[in-house]
């Protein structure tokens, strides 16, 4: 995937509790406003970040998030990287299926987050943690 040129210092935030998920949402919203995403795109990105941050917390056992402003020459965007060192996802295709959950949720978090952003990349292996990178470009 194209990651684009990084602008400015990325902002990091640890995810270890429910309060941290709220902080991630606030951080993402602040950066999304700074990049001038439309209100719909802001809401979509914040919601996707909320889903992925909660996945990092619940399934990854906590981790970190890094929010950066990126530029691909034509448009600016927000790139968010979620990383954990948890058990990883054994069957990625299954995890990305709507309605599949191992945690009692709606099973739409991961698959829904993919639909909410422009670029979605997930790297995972059993016992090697999971890293999810998403980008939302301004229109």
């Amino acid at each position, binding site marked *: 995937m194209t990651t684009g040129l990084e602008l400015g210092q990325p902002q990091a935030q640890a995810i270890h509790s429910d309060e941290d998920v709220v902080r991630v*949402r606030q951080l993402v919203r602040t950066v999304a406003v700074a990049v001038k995403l439309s209100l*719909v795109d802001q809401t979509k990105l914040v*919601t996707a970040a909320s889903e992925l941050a909660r996945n990092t917390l619940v399934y990854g056992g906590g981790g970190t998030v890094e929010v950066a402003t990126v530029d691909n020459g034509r448009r600016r965007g927000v790139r968010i990287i979620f990383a954990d060192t948890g058990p990883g996802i054994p069957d990625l295709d299954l995890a990305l299926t709507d309605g599949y959950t191992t945690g009692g949720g*709606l099973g*739409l978090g991961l698959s829904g987050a993919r639909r*909410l952003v422009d670029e979605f990349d997930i790297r995972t292996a059993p016992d090697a943690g999971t890293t999810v990178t998403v980008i939302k470009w301004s229109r």
Partner: protein
Amino acid sequence: MALSAEESGRLAGLLTSHDDQVTQRWTEIVTGSLRGRLSQAELRRQVQELHRAIVTVSEQGDLDLESERAAELRAVLAELSQGRARQGFSATETAVSVFALKEVLLELLDAEQNPTALRDYVAFSSLIDEMGLFTFESFVRTRESLIADQAEQLLELSTPVVKLWEGVVAVPLVGTLDSARAQVVMERLLQTLVDTGSPYAIIDITGVPAVDTQVAQHILKTVVAARLMGADCIISGIRPQIAQTIVALGIEFGDIATKASLADALRHVLRLTGVETSRRASRREA
């Protein structure tokens, strides 16, 4: 760092022999750092109290802030920092009240020209540092308990269930809907449904900034629980950006009625209960 018996004896001597001078100068320095936000009399009282506590404990031999004998001194320090924390002073402004004693002692030792002055000053200094850190910790503890209290109050405050019409109650949700708040909301709503005998409930999410799958799941559970009790729920306050996000996420609200605004939801319920039609009928008669 504890003071030996001789050192604490000298500290007691220094503090008592220049009693007024110490409290006077100490109060002056603290007043300067707080820029007149506490009255001179109040500050003088606090400084005198601290002064008395330090003298009392240092007269009893070796001085260790952790020891049993220093309990009263610790209590005075804790009271001071609790007061400052509640009055909205910063941690620095609180600790400075203690650290100011260093400057006072330095001036006194300077005037005395004692050969042990330097060693004494270093020993006193580390004791004062310890006292300062203690106030710092009490300050943080007080602030933390304040924050915990406020979080609890917020939980209580932010989930009112209001009666909109005869048989119609509404829950205006504001802010983040986490599991704890969702639980409070559900309990309140179900209890209000029983208390008022209302067959309709409107859950308004205008004030919820982002609806993710967890929020949606909490709302869906609340709706199902209300239905089990025989009440019908309408979700209102779905703004355009929230609607688009919900669609992209793939959340389905099934046969639950959703409306863009609280007014639409109320109109919908009134139509269902026949209020509007009966009003029109009566107008026609008149």
